[in-house]
């Protein structure tokens, strides 16, 4: 109970690069960090680390002076709560540990992150949550990421290097794909689901990918779930020991889970929920999960119960989720 597997540290920005229209890669350097696994996330404080509570030498009560007019409540439009991000990768270097994040700018927190300069400091807390269970040694891993759900797939790919795996990634359009696309490798056919070594983040681990865009601006034209189904239909005999891993929009993950279930393939889903703490204390990130035995608590008498995305997840079995 008291083993320090999680920590609160100040990280240094090593890289902050815009990957596509709305996504940024943020590489944070820390001297040391607890063991992390694909599927886990960290909580990032999206505000300056300079503490507002430091005691300065000029703290003197001046009877003639005016009262202080400034307080924390005047902070303005700045994120108060930390923001959870799944890890997109981790690298051990001579200087310490690199934690890789890929985020999409959607509000004040991610906007603040996107404006960071190399060398600035960021408060990081983690690692949090459970992990993806890796497939059996000779089983095929099928990674399915949609939009901002792609990052954890990149970390999983890193861990799967050298094993049988294929990645499916989709977005609305080409410039919403937060990855390094290699032009030379595109098949040029909008109906092809042939995995290619055309995404640098996957190909460096020897993992071929099928990219889909809703508008056909890169790779397969259509939803990533359609590409997945087509691929599974064509390769049904190779799927005996396969496991599907998915993260992305709720509708996409639901469809992936259905596709997996209909073919008897195990499916692990990484969900995203708004949360305050990330450690099970605020009880806000609940998700409905099937209960095999309604008589067993919690919520005895019901065939479902709430689980927390932060500590029970973010990875759940696709067959357990009540969408």
């Amino acid at each position, binding site marked *: 109970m008291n083993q320090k597997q999680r920590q609160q540290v100040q990280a240094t920005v090593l890289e902050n690069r815009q990957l596509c229209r709305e996504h940024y890669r943020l590489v944070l350097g820390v001297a040391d960090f607890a063991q992390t696994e694909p599927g886990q996330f960290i909580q990032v*404080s999206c505000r300056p680390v300079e503490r507002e509570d430091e005691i300065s030498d000029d703290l003197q009560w001046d009877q003639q002076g005016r009262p202080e007019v400034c307080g924390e*409540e005047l902070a303005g439009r700045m994120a108060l709560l930390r923001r959870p991000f799944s890890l997109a990768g981790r690298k051990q270097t001579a200087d310490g540990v690199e934690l890789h994040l890929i985020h999409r700018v959607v509000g004040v927190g991610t906007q603040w992150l996107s404006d960071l300069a190399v060398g600035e400091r960021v408060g990081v*807390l983690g690692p949090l949550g459970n992990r993806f269970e890796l497939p059996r040694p000779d089983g095929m891993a099928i990674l399915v990421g949609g939009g901002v759900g792609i990052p954890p797939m990149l970390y999983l790919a890193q861990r799967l290097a050298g094993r049988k795996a294929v990645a499916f990634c989709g977005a609305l359009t080409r410039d919403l794909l937060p990855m390094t696309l290699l032009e030379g490798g595109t098949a040029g056919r909008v109906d092809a689901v042939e995995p290619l070594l055309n995404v640098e983040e996957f190909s460096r681990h020897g993992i071929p990918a099928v990219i889909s865009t809703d508008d056909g601006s890169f790779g397969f034209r259509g939803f990533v779930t359609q590409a997945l189904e087509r691929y599974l239909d064509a390769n049904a005999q190779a799927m005996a020991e396969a496991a599907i891993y998915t993260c992305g929009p709720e509708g996409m993950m639901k469809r992936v889970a259905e596709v997996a279930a209909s073919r008897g393939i195990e499916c692990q889903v990484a969900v995203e929920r708004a949360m305050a703490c990330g450690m099970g204390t*605020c009880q806000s990130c609940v998700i409905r999960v099937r209960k095999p035995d309604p008589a067993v608590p919690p919520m005895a008498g019901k065939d479902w119960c709430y689980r927390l995305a932060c500590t029970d997840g973010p990875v759940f079995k696709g067959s357990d989720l009540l969408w």
Partner: protein
Amino acid sequence: MADLSVELAGWKLSYPTMTCSGTCGYAFEYADFMDLSKLGAFVTKSITREERPGNEPSRIVETRAGMLNAIGLANVGLDRFLAEKVPLLKKMPCPVAVNVAGHSFEDYVQTCAAMNGLSCLSAVELNVSCPNVKDGLTFGTHPGRLKELTAQVKKVLPDKKLIVKLSPNVEDITATARAAVEGGADILSLVNTFTAMAVDIHRRRPRLANVTGGLSGPAIKPIAVHLVSRVYRGVAKNAGVPIIGMGGIQYWQDAVEFILAGASAVAVGTALFVDPAAPVRICEGLAQYLDKYKIGRLTDLVGALELPGDEPRKTPYA
């Protein structure tokens, strides 16, 4: 080094900082981030007689300098609390208070009666911001009812300190504070969250599934300081009942405001989500502040706020 210890109605705490119920789990959730022995006291999540799954999501939304929550008292219920959480609480390296909520007089009395015999608990904090299922009226907003509830609970808690946590969603908080004191409260804690609402302007719907939620965080701090000051001067000081101040405390400076306004101890809630070590950091800041002004004991600062009309102090440091 200044003396930070405090005594709340005979309950001795080594440090003046506590956790707010509902923001720190049941026991060791923050142990990786904070030396729990440096907490003045740990206050558990609200426990109800029956297990509660809580509200439909979405349960939280961040607002400017604050957050709204509508968790719905999700908790394991009394039986599982006794079976699963009490063994953990027995190992806590700091004093522990359990927070109790209910939806009827019987709920509160039965749950509190079960707590009285637990040696790992020093105090029971009553969450009175829940509606009574019988008539829908909130326990904590009607002085007569609050006095009755406090008195009934007090009878079954002869061995524990009784803390009543006041709701700010009332016309006159001194009226409910007085009712709690008359009912037998040993300690008052204030304030709970403010009922509030946030709107999704694109969907034209409330952002919380529950429609309303409780506002917490730095946004409420100035109101909470004001309410502590009112309760201290209007009720608590004369009655000799100590106050645990809470509401948006994030830094030691915030804690000093509450203590000057009349709080004998402070509790940290929403700030734990941002920095789980906040209570310990606040203590470090308080110690430096006291040393700087050569104040020997934190208790000398309680209620030391000088308002217009007060007898002027001889020195600003006394």
